[in-house]
């Protein structure tokens, strides 16, 4: 009796042991690590950068696409013509394009997608992209005319954002869970809390993806990310979360470390509507008290470029304003005294989870303490941060990276969480929207950068680096991140 039971037990346990001992089967395709799991998969109704990180350019495509050098390239629109007054864009669409569910992509989908995104009840996170659109007219199934209310200089770039991708009326309502697009990969499945799998779409209209499968594995904990890369559980991270580990990867011949630029301006967000931060002298005092290099060294282990305004150093129109309020604690104390706070004051600093914010917050608190400003640090999760700081504006100070490209326009939004209200800045943004001439746009952008720096709206810290870490055999990954998300159709694993 006993022996029979034990024999059954052995039979039950043996396969498990064998499976545990056996070598894992060779992986198909590419496995990429991501720190944050997207809340949904519909890029047209969510602000989370992780959504674009998975689906942009892979599952969904727009009329145009942003290449990794930041240039605008044709996508679902193979070409376009712009009227002389800059008010009419005629997009000539790719023929024979089908969505992953088999339905045909044509001009009616363009009209549907653009009108859906710009509708009053639209949940699009970047509705500003669609504001210039007056009307969308179907000329024939492969030609569509977009009429603008005013010339919008960056309209083609904006149509390349993840928020402006083309969707099908049939599948659009379900894109949050089962995304259906026209891209080189189709969605296979999503194990919540673990991974999302995409598979090459064989009927893709363009050059087929080089990899049969892409899997995104979500690893929140930086220490686990380090272990996963070392153990080969993932082939790499497009945005590796722990800069302190880079020296270890750099000397390891198995891995490649690629440092590029992102559009992520990391700032000390200041609640301009709250005392004492409404006082310009206080904000300038804070600016003088910040030692940017110390924050970059301490929080990012030296990876990051100091910025003096909310603008990417990689952009042509970038103006170096880091010298406007150089690190000068004694000047900061003088300004605080002038503002009526000779003994400083106490404020809270609410920090989201990433290490740049947590570490940066501790360094910043020590720097501000030197000029008499005492910061109470409150660490919080992303959901809490989005609710308290971003949505309800219940905060004094915070640290966060703004990863959207060309997002200086947020300073013109009264309802934005900085609560910065400047008629002059809004006028600048209105002028920018109406300007098509490249040189003139650049000039306006420079004035805008200078204004928010002079008003010291926020503490401007550093431009976030794109830290890529991957297996040397992984090819085709992007170096820079000109937008949220990257096209992975060129990525493959060399065996």
């Amino acid at each position, binding site marked *: 009796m006993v022996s029979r039971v034990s024999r059954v037990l052995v039979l039950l346990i043996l396969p498990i042991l064998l499976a545990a001992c056996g070598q894992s089967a060779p992986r198909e395709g590419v496995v990429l690590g991501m720190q944050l799991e997207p809340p949904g998969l519909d890029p047209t109704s969510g602000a989370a950068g992780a959504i674009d990180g998975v689906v942009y350019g892979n599952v969904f495509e727009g009329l145009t696409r942003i290449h990794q050098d930041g240039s605008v390239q044709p996508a679902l629109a193979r070409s376009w013509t712009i009227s002389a007054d800059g008010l009419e864009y005629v997009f000539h669409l790719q023929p024979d394009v089908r969505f992953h569910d088999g339905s045909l992509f044509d001009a009616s989908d363009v009209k549907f997608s653009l009108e859906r995104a710009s509708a009053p009840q639209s949940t699009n996170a970047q509705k500003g992209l669609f504001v210039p659109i007056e009307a969308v007219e179907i000329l024939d199934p492969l030609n569509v005319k977009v009429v603008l209310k005013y010339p919008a200089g960056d309209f083609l770039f904006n149509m390349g954002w993840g928020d402006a991708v083309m969707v099908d009326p049939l599948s659009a309502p379900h894109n949050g869970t089962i995304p259906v697009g026209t891209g080189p990969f189709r969605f296979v499945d999503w194990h919540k809390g673990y991974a999302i799998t995409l598979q090459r779409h064989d009927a893709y209209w363009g050059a087929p993806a080089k990899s049969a499968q892409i899997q995104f594995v979500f690893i929140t904990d930086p220490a686990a990310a380090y272990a996963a890369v070392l153990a080969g559980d993932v082939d790499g991270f497009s945005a590796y979360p722990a800069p302190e580990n880079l020296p270890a990867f750099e000397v390891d011949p198995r891995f490649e470390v690629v440092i590029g630029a992102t559009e992520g301006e990391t700032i000390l967000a200041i609640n301009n509507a709250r005392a004492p931060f409404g006082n310009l002298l206080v904000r300038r005092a804070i600016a003088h008290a910040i030692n940017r290099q110390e924050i970059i060294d301490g929080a990012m282990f030296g990876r990051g470029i100091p910025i003096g305004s909310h603008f990417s150093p990689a952009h042509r129109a970038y103006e170096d304003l880091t010298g406007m309020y150089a690190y000068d604690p004694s000047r900061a104390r003088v300004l605080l005294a002038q503002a009526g706070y000779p003994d400083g004051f106490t404020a809270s600093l609410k920090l989201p989870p990433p*290490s740049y914010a947590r570490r940066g917050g*501790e360094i910043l608190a020590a720097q501000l303490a030197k000029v008499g400003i005492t910061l109470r640090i409150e660490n919080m999760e992303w959901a809490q941060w989005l609710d308290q700081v971003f949505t309800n504006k219940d905060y004094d100070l915070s640290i966060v990276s703004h990863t959207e490209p060309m997002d200086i326009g947020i300073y013109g939004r009264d309802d934005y969480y900085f609560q910065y209200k400047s008629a002059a800045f809004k006028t600048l943004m209105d002028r920018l929207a109406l300007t098509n001439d490249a040189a003139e746009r650049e000039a306006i952008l420079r004035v805008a950068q200078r204004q928010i720096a002079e008003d010291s709206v926020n503490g401007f810290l550093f431009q976030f680096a794109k830290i890529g870490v991957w297996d040397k055999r992984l090819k085709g990954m992007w170096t820079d991140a000109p937008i949220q998300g990257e096209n992975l159709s060129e990525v493959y694993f060399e065996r």
Partner: protein
Amino acid sequence: MMPRLSASFVIGAALSAIILLAALVSLFWTPYDYAALDIAARLLPPTPSHWFGTDHLGRDVLSMVMAGARNSIAVAIVAVCIGMGLGVPLGLLAAAQRGWAEESLMRVNDLVFAFPALIMAILITAVFGPGAINAIIAIGIFNIPVFARLSRGAALSLWTRDYVLAARLSAKRPLQISLEHILPNITGLLIVQGTIQFSMGIIAEAGLSYVGLGAQPPNPSWGRMLFEAQTMASFAPWLALFPGFAILFSVLGLNLLGDGLRDLFDPKSRRGVA
């Protein structure tokens, strides 16, 4: 004659004394300011000028470990006091009253006892916000049933003793008997249990800080030091080793001390003695 002190008592007392001493000294002196950042001197390995090295923000790890001892001990002491202060009276009351009072008290106790303490502590600090005070309350609440059960059980066995019977015959009220005859006789047990709970409080505090719900920066805490050291353990192992050893030695020391104290208070349970 004083009973011979056991080895575990001596080792435990020594380890506990070292940690306690470090915490006391840190009140008025640490080698460096534990909150002072020095980015230029970050990640220095242990040297004569920084015995335990420096962390990723250039803070002196020895100073942080010392100040962290203060934090751990303060949280654990107050938590044990909460547990004893509420648990012991409840246990004595239950033993003295019997009947429905005992039943209802002990069943509520079981209810609290049934929840995994750390999970509930996480819940409490998540609802009322992270911080040392909330960590103390959370850990303290879960010490209550431990002491209530212990004192009730011990008191019940004492209630059958002749001297208690004598006290009852002399018309003393149950409350008076509990205080005058029962409590002094279970003190030894309570001290032993208190020592054990103290060490568990240190672990719980480290656990809460590790997940970010304990003491908030810049107040140092061993658990958070471990968390921050995680990604750097491969190239700066001293960041994880020293707070790790601090937790290990304080918990080990307190447990050995508890064992030694039990031997002292209850000679019958001493090994080797018939």
